[in-house]
C-alpha cells in the first residue's frame, strides 16, 4: 500500500485532478438537460390497428392480419394451456403473426412498456410481481372487456361468453361501476385442505363444528400429530379459511364491510369469535411446532408428510405439491366448521373465486385480438386443456365432464356443489395488496397465531391499519356494488 499523495514537482497531482474533474461534472450537469429523456415518456402513439370485418365467426371484428402479442405468467399453472390456445388463434387467423412470451417477472418486464404506452395485447398479470390492479384501473390503463363478455361464445353462438362463466367471475373484474377490467381465468377453491386417509386412520370424519374440530385435534395430538399448520412466513394464507369462517358466523355482509374499509368493520362480533377460535388452536398446542418460521412450501411439506391434519390453502396446492403428496393421500377440501348453532350461514359456505387475472391494456395495439384470444381460452376445449394440465378449474362453467379428475379437483367440485349459492368472495387481496398481505397477514394474524398478540390486540391493530388505508389518499378505494 503505497502513498497516494501528490508530489509537488509534477504539476497536477491526482487529487487535484479529481477535484477539478468533479467541478467539471457539476458544470456539465445542467447542460445535459437536452438529454433529459424522461423515464416516463409521453403516452405513446395511439397507433391501433384497424378493425377487421365483423361476422358470425369473428364477432369482435378482429383484424385478421394484425400481429398479436401475449405475455403469460409462468408460475404454478405453467404456460401450456396458453400455448394451446395460442395455437388455435394462429390456426383461425393464419395471416396474423402471434408473439408469445412467458415470464415470472410481470412487473419488471412490463412496467417500462406501460410507461412508454406500448404494452402487449394480452397479459396474465399474476405472481409475486403482479402489477397493482387498483393502480392500473385508477390510471385508466386497462381496456373494458364488456365487448368480449357480450360476444357469442365459441361452443354455442346462442349464448354469450358472459353466460358461460362461473358465478362471481364477472363481478370480480369490476372495480367501480359496469366496466369489466379483468378476466380471471382460473377458478380457485379456498378452504381447509386435508387428507381423507389421515382422518380415516383416526376414525374421524371432517369436523362440521368447532367442538368436533377441537376434539379431533386433541385426538391427533395424543398420536403426536398436530391439528393445524399454515404458511408461517406468509401468514396471509390464513384468511383462505378464516374469511369464509367469519362470513359463516356473521354473514357475508361482514366481509363486505371489511372490503369497503368501513370503520369498526373488524370489531364485529363475528370477527372476534373467529379470531378467538383460531387463537384457541394455538393456545391448546394444536398448531404444528415451529409453524411461524415455515414458508408455504415448508408448511405444505410437513402437512403432506402427515405431521399436521389441516392447512388453510387454495386448490393450486395439489399441483404445487404433486411431487410429495402421497398416492393414497385422498386430498380433500373442507368448508369452515360451524362455530355454533347461531351461525348466519349454513355449513358448506366456502370461498371460491377467480384467479390468474388476464388483462387487455387500454393502449394495446390489437385489443380485439387480445379479447379474441380470451374468447378462445373460454371455450370448452381450451378449458379442458387447462384443467387437465393444471388440476384447477377454469372460469368456464363446466368443462369437467369426460376428463379424469384428480382427488383435490373432485373434492373441490363437490364442495362447490354443496355450497350452492353460499359462495363468498372477499376482495381485500385484489384491492389492497399491502393491507391484506403485509398488515393484516404478517402483522396481525401472523403475530396472533404465533402467540405474540391476543385476538383483541390483533383486531385493534388490524382495524388501525384498515382505517389508515381508508384515509390514505394515495391509494384508490373500491366498494362492493
Amino acid at each position, binding site marked *: 500500500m503505497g502513498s497516494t499523495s501528490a508530489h509537488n514537482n509534477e504539476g497536477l497531482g491526482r487529487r487535484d485532478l479529481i477535484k477539478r474533474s468533479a467541478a467539471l461534472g457539476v458544470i456539465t450537469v445542467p447542460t445535459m438537460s437536452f438529454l433529459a429523456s424522461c423515464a416516463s415518456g409521453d403516452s405513446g402513439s395511439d397507433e391501433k390497428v384497424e378493425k377487421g370485418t365483423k361476422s358470425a365467426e369473428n364477432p369482435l371484428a378482429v383484424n385478421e392480419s394484425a400481429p398479436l402479442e401475449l405475455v403469460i405468467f409462468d408460475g404454478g399453472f405453467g404456460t401450456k394451456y396458453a400455448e394451446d390456445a395460442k395455437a388455435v388463434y394462429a390456426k383461425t387467423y393464419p395471416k396474423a403473426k402471434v408473439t408469445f412470451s412467458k415470464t415470472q417477472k410481470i412487473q419488471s418486464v412490463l412496467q417500462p412498456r406501460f410507461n412508454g404506452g406500448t404494452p402487449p395485447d394480452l397479459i396474465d398479470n399474476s405472481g409475486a410481481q403482479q402489477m397493482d390492479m387498483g*393502480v392500473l384501473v385508477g390510471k385508466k390503463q386497462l381496456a373494458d372487456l364488456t365487448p368480449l363478455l357480450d360476444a357469442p361464445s365459441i361452443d354455442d353462438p346462442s349464448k354469450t361468453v358472459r353466460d358461460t362463466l362461473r358465478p362471481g367471475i364477472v363481478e370480480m373484474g369490476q372495480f367501480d361501476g359496469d366496466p369489466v377490467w379483468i378476466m380471471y381465468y382460473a377458478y380457485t377453491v379456498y378452504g381447509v385442505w386435508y387428507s381423507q386417509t389421515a382422518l380415516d386412520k383416526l376414525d374421524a370424519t371432517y369436523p362440521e363444528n368447532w367442538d368436533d374440530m377441537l376434539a379431533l385435534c386433541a385426538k391427533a395430538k395424543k398420536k403426536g400429530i398436530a391439528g393445524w399448520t399454515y404458511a408461517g412466513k406468509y401468514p396471509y394464507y390464513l384468511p383462505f379459511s378464516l374469511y369464509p369462517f367469519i362470513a359463516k358466523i356473521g354473514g357475508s355482509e361482514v366481509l363486505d364491510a371489511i372490503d369497503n374499509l368501513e370503520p369498526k368493520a373488524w370489531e364485529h362480533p363475528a370477527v372476534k369469535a373467529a379470531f378467538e377460535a383460531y387463537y384457541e388452536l394455538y393456545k391448546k398446542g394444536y398448531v404444528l411446532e415451529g409453524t411461524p418460521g415455515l414458508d408455504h412450501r*415448508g408448511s405444505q411439506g410437513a402437512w403432506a408428510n402427515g405431521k399436521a391434519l389441516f392447512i388453510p390453502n387454495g386448490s393450486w396446492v395439489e399441483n404445487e405439491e404433486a411431487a410429495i403428496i402421497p398416492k393414497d393421500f385422498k386430498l380433500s377440501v373442507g368448508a369452515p366448521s360451524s362455530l355454533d348453532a347461531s351461525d348466519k350461514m349454513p355449513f358448506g359456505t366456502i370461498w371460491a373465486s377467480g384467479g390468474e387475472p388476464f388483462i387487455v391494456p387500454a393502449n394495446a395495439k390489437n385489443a380485439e385480438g387480445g379479447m379474441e384470444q380470451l374468447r378462445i381460452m373460454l371455450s370448452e376445449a381450451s378449458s379442458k386443456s387447462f384443467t387437465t394440465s393444471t388440476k384447477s378449474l377454469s372460469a368456464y362453467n363446466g368443462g369437467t365432464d369426460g376428463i379424469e379428475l384428480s382427488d383435490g379437483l373432485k373434492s373441490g367440485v363437490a364442495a362447490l356443489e354443496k355450497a350452492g349459492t353460499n359462495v363468498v368472495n372477499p376482495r381485500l387481496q385484489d384491492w389492497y395488496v399491502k393491507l391484506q398481505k403485509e398488515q393484516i*397477514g404478517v402483522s396481525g394474524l401472523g403475530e396472533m397465531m*404465533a402467540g405474540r398478540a391476543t385476538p383483541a390486540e390483533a383486531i385493534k391493530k388490524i382495524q388501525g391499519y384498515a382505517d389508515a388505508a381508508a384515509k390514505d389518499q394515495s391509494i384508490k378505494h373500491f366498494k362492493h356494488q
Partner: protein
Amino acid sequence: MQHGKYRFIVGFLIAPMALYVIFVVWPFIQSIYYSFTDWTGLSPDFEMVGFDNYTKMFKDDVFWKSLEHSVLLAILLPLVTLGLALFFAFMLNVGGRRRKGAVISGVRGSGFYKIAYFFPQVLSIAIVAILFQFAFDPAQGMINGSLKAFGFDHLPNWLGDPKLALWCIMAVLVWCTTGFFVVLFSAGMASIPKDFYEAALLDGASRFTTFFRITLPLLWDTVQSGWVYMGILALGAEGFAVVNIMSVGPGGPDYSTTVLPLYVYQAAFRDGQAGYATTIGVALLLVTLAFAAVVMKLGRRERLEY
C-alpha cells in the same frame, strides 16, 4: 512539459465523464425529481405534489423502522465483519508459531483456511440466503436438528421470532462477507515489509502488540475502504437480498426485519407508488452519503509511507 496539459487531460476524461453523468448523476437528479410527484410507475401520467411524499414519509412508522434497521446494519456489520476478517487475516499471515527460517508465518493449514473463508464469496448471495433459510427452518432445519441432538428442547423459532430474526439475518451477512475481507487484508499484509516484523520480534513484542502497533496502522487505508464498502453493502444490495429472501413476509415478523431498500422495492414494485419509493430512495441516498462521510472523517489518519 506543462504546455497544453489541461486540454490533454480533459480530452481523455470527456468520454468517461459523459458516461458517468448520463448513467449516474442524471438518474440521481431524475429520482429526486420524481420524489416530488405522484408517479405510480404503471402509467405515464403524473402530477407534481410538492412535499407530500416527504410529509408522508416522516409520519410513516414503517419507514422509521426500516431506517432504524438499516442504520443498525450499517454500524454493526462492518464492525463485526472487519473485526473477524482482521483477526483471521492476521492469524493466517502473521500469527503462526515461528518456524525455522521464516520471520513470520501463518498458522498451520492457512492455505486451506484462505480457500475455505473465501468460498462463500463464490456463491451468489441469493443461494446463500436460501440455504440459510433451510438451515433456520424450525421444524426440519439443520440448526434446530443439531440442537435437538444435543438434548435441547424449547427450540427457538429463529426467523419466525421478531426478537431473533434480524440477528439471524446479520449472522448470514457476516458469514458471507467475511471471507472477501480476509483475502483483501491478507493481500494488504503481504505488502508490509518483513523487517518491521523482524525488528518487533527482536524487541520481544507479543503477537498482540505486533498487531496493534505494526499491522493495523500500516493496513489502515485498506481497512477504511473496506469499512465504507461493507457499510454500503449492508445499506444496499446485500442487506436487501438477504431480508427479501429469508425474512417472514418479507420484512417481518411484524416489521422486525424491514430495511430501507426493501421498503423502496415494495413501494415501487408491489404498491405501484414509484413516486413515494423514490422519496424513500432519496432518504437512503442521504443515509449512505452520511455514513461514508462519517467513516472518512473518523478514519482520517496520517499517511504512512513505506
